[in-house]
């Protein structure tokens, strides 16, 4: 408990945030965020179009599920080692980005195709029958309606990536892992605890942010009425949000 408080105090000490001989907390935090952002961008570029394609056409779903699950089983640290050591990458920042992106792709892919696939088939059929092109069906119907699940996938991917990015400091990249690794290396347990706390707070804060984003991504008319749609379709008596009853068939 005392260690924990010391860790908090260490975090609150501005001196630890400034760069000295080694990068300070601010640089570490920015490094962590930078690696996370780059990894997520790569994951989005790969997984979202693929997920949309699978969800829209309904083809390749099995391949996606198997590949996602297999990727989830990859040992993170091992993946890092292989990529950083075996591949000499240019530019160098690609080294942590590739394994992190590989980790972010499965949840993002799953969320995207599940989101597109979950859109009511009758609505999609109606949109097509009205004369929407496939692109219009995708951009105006499937993606808006699937958005909450797609953002949910993004949320899971970001959460995992931002926490795992800590590992990059094993290989010389500046992240909050720098502080944490001091502990086992030189018995500096207070920075280790402080660093761990910072990663935790960062992950929770970002997750909270995405929770809000996920909620606001639900299109109006759907977020509040998902259950009512079925009731209304059965011709049951429903009440408008204002509380005024709607008479049937008016």
């Amino acid at each position, binding site marked *: 408990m005392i260690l924990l408080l010391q860790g908090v105090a260490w975090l609150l000490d501005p001196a630890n945030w400034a760069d000295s001989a080694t990068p300070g907390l601010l640089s570490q935090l920015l490094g962590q965020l930078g690696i996370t952002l780059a990894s997520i961008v790569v994951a989005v570029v790969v997984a979202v179009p693929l997920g949309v394609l699978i969800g829209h056409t309904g083809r390749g779903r099995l391949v996606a599920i198997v590949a996602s699950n297999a990727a989830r089983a990859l040992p993170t640290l091992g993946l890092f080692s292989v990529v950083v050591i075996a591949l000499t990458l240019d530019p160098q920042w690609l080294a942590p980005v590739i394994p992190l992106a590989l980790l972010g792709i499965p949840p993002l892919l799953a969320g995207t195709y599940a989101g597109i696939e979950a859109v009511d088939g009758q609505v999609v059929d109606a949109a097509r029958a009205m004369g929407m*092109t496939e692109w219009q069906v995708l951009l105006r119907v499937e993606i808006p309606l699937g958005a909450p699940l797609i953002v949910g996938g993004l949320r899971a991917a970001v959460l995992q990536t931002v926490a795992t990015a800590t590992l990059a400091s094993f290989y010389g990249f500046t992240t909050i892992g720098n502080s944490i690794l001091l502990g086992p290396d030189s018995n500096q347990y207070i920075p280790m605890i402080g660093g761990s706390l910072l990663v935790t707070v960062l992950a929770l804060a970002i997750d909270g942010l995405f929770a809000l984003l996920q909620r606001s991504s639900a299109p109006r008319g*759907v977020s509040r009425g998902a259950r009512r*749609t079925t009731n209304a379709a059965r011709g049951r008596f429903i009440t408008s949000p204002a509380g005024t009853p709607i008479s049937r068939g008016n």
Partner: protein
Amino acid sequence: MAIEFRHVSKTFPDGTTAVEDFSLSIPSHETTVLVGSSGCGKTTLLRMINRMVDPSSGSILIDGEDISGIPPVGLRRRIGYVMQNSGLLPHRTVADNVATVPMLTGVPKRKAREDALALLDRVGLDRGLAKRYPAQLSGGQQQRVGVARGLAVDPNILLMDEPFGAVDPIVRDELQQELLRLQGSLGKTVVFVTHDIDEAFLLGNQVVILQRGGRVAQVGSPKEILANPANDFVADFIGAKRGKRRLTAEAGASGDEVLLVDAAGYAAGVITAPGGRLELATAGSSPKSRSVSNKTDQAGDA
């Protein structure tokens, strides 16, 4: 906008044959109803008209033009489509749903919205509902919005796929009357699919009774079909075989109204017969009859 089916067949990739050698000509400005039990291919036939389904063989012509040469998206934008459960976009307001197709075809947003409001009037919906979302409407209201959307580009052809199948009988009755009223003033070429023979007889100028595989059992006006069922299948389907269409007056009724019962003894309605004498329909007057349910609205035609 007459529609013609010429020897149309459809076999789906899984090997099921929905329609086999189907030919039919659908006159313009009238309502043609395709009626049959589930799996008779009626919806497949309907969806061939806007190329949601392409026939495996044969051709479909609209005003003499083979539609297989018309790009599907353009074709669909000039044909109205109304489906069961409305198929409204849940994330768009009622007005935006109605305005969807006009906006796809480049009508300015403001004008499309104004037109949408006028269409709501036309289908008997309050303009106050324009800003609501579909989930906030009753089933009957949703279907009305669906009809308004189908009419939004003022199409010559309106396809309706069991549009009133999921609403309760009272609302269905209202919607059917509304459609008759609309069709009376618009005169579209309506192709309507249903499994309800009473709905078919009520709405159709031409009724097509389908058997499995899209085989035509009989084509004709409701009166022709009721008076002369072509075969046992038709007779059974329209209920004539079970005596549902043959009504007899129940003796012993009091006053001027005589109870009518069908062959099964079901009280189908009453008919006015002053002094026990039934007045036959003439141009000026018709006997006042009252049905117990809309099931027997057509009984007098038999």
